[in-house]
């Protein structure tokens, strides 16, 4: 087997007004190298102008998500060897505006995330004198959804996100659902108002790819379908008991 591999890397320079193109680089093929190591080799040894995001190198920060051979992938936990003999095509995440090379603009995602209020909302003046106790069952209810690292691979995998830029999207809805399921939270009505819109849960057509590509094994598709059920139940309750407290 060759001791090198070709990386075809998407290049885009906003200052030259050109269209994105691919540039090939030959990088060492080492058994312990991830795709990110190959990109760092290019940056350090071959072309310092290559732009891409990365930070923790251990699948925690969610910065280094890219399309690797057309699949949304965390490049820090994907072995280059998996793609031997190559070539490996590395591109920015689908469905996001590209700022430069492999860097995408996450402003829209972050605005959507903030909109769904992904934090514990209290409607009373409850100030616990000590920590808020939760049973293992209460923790289990939302635990898997709390593992989301906002890497946005699910947005790149979701064709609805690409077709409808207003779609709130898998990660934001999964995190909204995570707080809805939290026994300490009282913000479900606020989130339902935001997420039960057409651009929210009802835009999802259950493609299911968001759950397939998630590197932390969160199941955003499940969260969205459960959110749909909750929204439907709340709607029926308000329809049958319009003056009742829900």
């Amino acid at each position, binding site marked *: 087997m060759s001791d090198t591999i070709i990386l075809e890397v998407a290049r885009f320079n906003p200052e030259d007004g050109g*269209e994105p193109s691919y540039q090939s680089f030959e990088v060492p093929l080492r058994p312990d190298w991830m795709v990110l190591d190959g990109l760092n080799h290019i940056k350090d040894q071959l072309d310092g102008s290559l732009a891409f995001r990365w930070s923790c190198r251990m699948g925690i920060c969610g910065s280094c998500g890219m399309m690797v051979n057309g699949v949304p992938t965390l490049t820090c936990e994907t072995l280059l060897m998996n793609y031997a003999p190559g070539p490996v095509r590395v591109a920015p995440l689908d469905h996001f505006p590209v700022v430069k090379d492999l860097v995408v603009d996450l402003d829209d995602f972050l605005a959507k995330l903030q909109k769904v209020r992904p934090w514990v909302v209290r409607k009373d003046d409850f100030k616990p004198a000590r920590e808020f106790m939760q049973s293992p069952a209460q923790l289990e209810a939302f635990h898997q959804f709390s593992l989301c690292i906002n890497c946005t691979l699910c947005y790149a995998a979701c064709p609805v996100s690409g077709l409808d830029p207003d779609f709130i999207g898998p990660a934001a809805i999964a995190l909204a659902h995570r707080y809805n399921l939290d026994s300490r939270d009282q913000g479900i009505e606020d989130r339902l108002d935001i997420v039960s819109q057409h651009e929210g849960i009802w835009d999802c057509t259950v493609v299911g790819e968001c759950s397939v590509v998630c590197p932390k094994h969160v199941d955003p598709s*499940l969260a969205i379908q459960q959110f749909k059920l909750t929204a439907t139940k709340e709607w029926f309750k308000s329809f049958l008991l319009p003056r009742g407290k829900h």
Partner: protein
Amino acid sequence: MPQYTQYQPKEHRPKMSAYWYLDNWHYLRYALRESSSFFVAYFCVLTLVQLAALGTNATRYARFEAFMAHPAMIIVNAIALAFFLLHAITWFNLVPRVMMRQILARPTPDIISSAPNYLVWFGATIILALFITGVL
């Protein structure tokens, strides 16, 4: 010295291809599942036409049967049946995504949620088969 600007407004905004569903097998499977609804509607209309023919007179029903026995219609119905099965199976398999897990408020094996649908389907098929073959 290079000239830097604080903000780069010239982002590249890629557009999705009109044929995005051909990008990978998962998308194609999804597109096939969604388009299978057309064939479900086709069978519904076909059943209505059949009932209308049955309710009119024997001649018209014989004409309907002759039309359905045409090789072209057999091919069309075979394709429609394949999509109908795809529709039923994929949607039955999606049931665990919501119903049972939500009702029991804890993860349950997928098969527990899907099985009742398959059992009802299987039972209805047996009853219809017995009815068509004259056993019932």
